[in-house]
């Protein structure tokens, strides 16, 4: 069964979920659980809680596969968005932890992107690293502090001493620039 499912698209896998095929969920896990776990762990810095996030995200997909709409993006981005949202909820519910994470995230944003430790593919990692380097420093900090630090744009503005409007504009322009850079490098953003 796995050999068959390993060849099918994510959309077909979700159709399998709608028909309650556990093999389909196993294949979703095989493809995406590592990234989901990695993102959750980076945000939460806690393996057990990151595992809980993976469980929640996959079980929610199992229970409600119709929440995934292929017209709104790939399954990968859907799962990562779900994981990110859940991890941020956990993070924001723990204010003491949040303070520490904000500090750590700020330090991380000021340092080098630890791409060598976190890559799935060296070529892709190189493209991502270059794309990040192409950002203005303010854009990069805003994107990293929100995405990997779980901060709101207002919190980023306070942390960096910038205007809120400036930060939200930088997040948007930073994401757009990343997309353009990756596309220019031949990376198809949005492929599952």
């Amino acid at each position: 069964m796995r050999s068959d499912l390993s060849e099918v698209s994510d959309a077909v896998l979700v159709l399998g979920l709608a028909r309650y095929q556990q093999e389909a969920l196993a294949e979703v896990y095989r493809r995406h659980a590592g990234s989901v776990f990695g993102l959750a762990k980076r945000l939460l810095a806690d393996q057990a809680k990151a595992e809980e996030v993976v469980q929640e995200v996959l079980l929610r997909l199992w229970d409600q596969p119709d929440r995934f709409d292929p017209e709104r993006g790939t399954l990968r981005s859907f799962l990562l968005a779900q994981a990110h949202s859940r991890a941020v909820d956990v993070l924001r519910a723990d204010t003491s932890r949040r303070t520490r994470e904000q500090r750590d995230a700020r330090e991380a944003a000021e340092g080098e992107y630890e791409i060598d430790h976190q890559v799935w593919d060296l070529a892709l990692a190189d493209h991502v690293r270059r794309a990040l380097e192409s950002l203005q420093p303010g854009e990069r900090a805003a994107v990293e502090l929100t995405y990997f630090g779980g901060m709101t744009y207002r919190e980023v503005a306070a942390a960096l001493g910038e205007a809120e409007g400036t930060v939200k504009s930088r997040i948007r322009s930073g994401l757009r620039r990343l997309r353009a850079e990756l596309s220019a490098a031949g990376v198809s953003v949005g492929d599952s």
Partner: protein
Amino acid sequence: MSDHTRDMDELLGAYALDAVSDQEHAVIEQYLSINPKARAEVREHREVAAMLAWTGTMAPDGLWDRISARLEEQAPPPSGELAAVLSLAAARDLAPAASPSDSAQTRRLGRHRSVGRTIGSWLVGSAAAALVAVFVVTVMQRDDVARSALASAAQSALDDRTSATATLVDEAGTVGGRAVIDHDGHGYLIVSGLPSLPLDHTYQLWGVIEGKVISLGVLGHHPEIATFSADGTVTQLVVTNEVGGGVIMDGNPDGAFAGTLG
């Protein structure tokens, strides 16, 4: 562009990264419901973020076993309108009985297998099936604004000569509605003649795929317009009147509306 629109657009990046307040989140969700361009932008932002998250990390050993165990101990509950219908059905003892030994499997397979059985014979001999992978299972009913947007999108699909259309009629020839699937696989069902059902009933949309019948979504008891998605060519569409989705019934469903796409 109004100041409100400009403000909302400016927040889309932060929204995509979960970096807005709960209040802003709610306002943006409303904005997205009526602005396809903004939805597309958020989708693009999230795809970019997903690239950043591509960590190459392996999930820990044993995690899948724990998830799998959760699946075994509790079959997935139906959601949305189907859940509401099933709840009503259960309250009226309409749900199918199942032995403890086969209950989980029955619940998992019941919806598709049971209705496949009920309308399968009704469709025997239907068109040869070239076919497809149906992507979704998304059927939406929204507020007036969104419904208007859907109607506009459906009309655009109808105006596109590359779209496939079908008029759904019952055995008496009464027209229940018209369906259209555009070249990108976006499907719309525009209901015109489906009578309102009791609250414990629901209409359900089905597609014929390689001779098999697969659910495309639950429409509710009084649908007006709905969307669905399909990749490829669905040969036929059928709308049935279901008594508490998932309930095993004998024989063909009463009042089914069917149409062949062309």
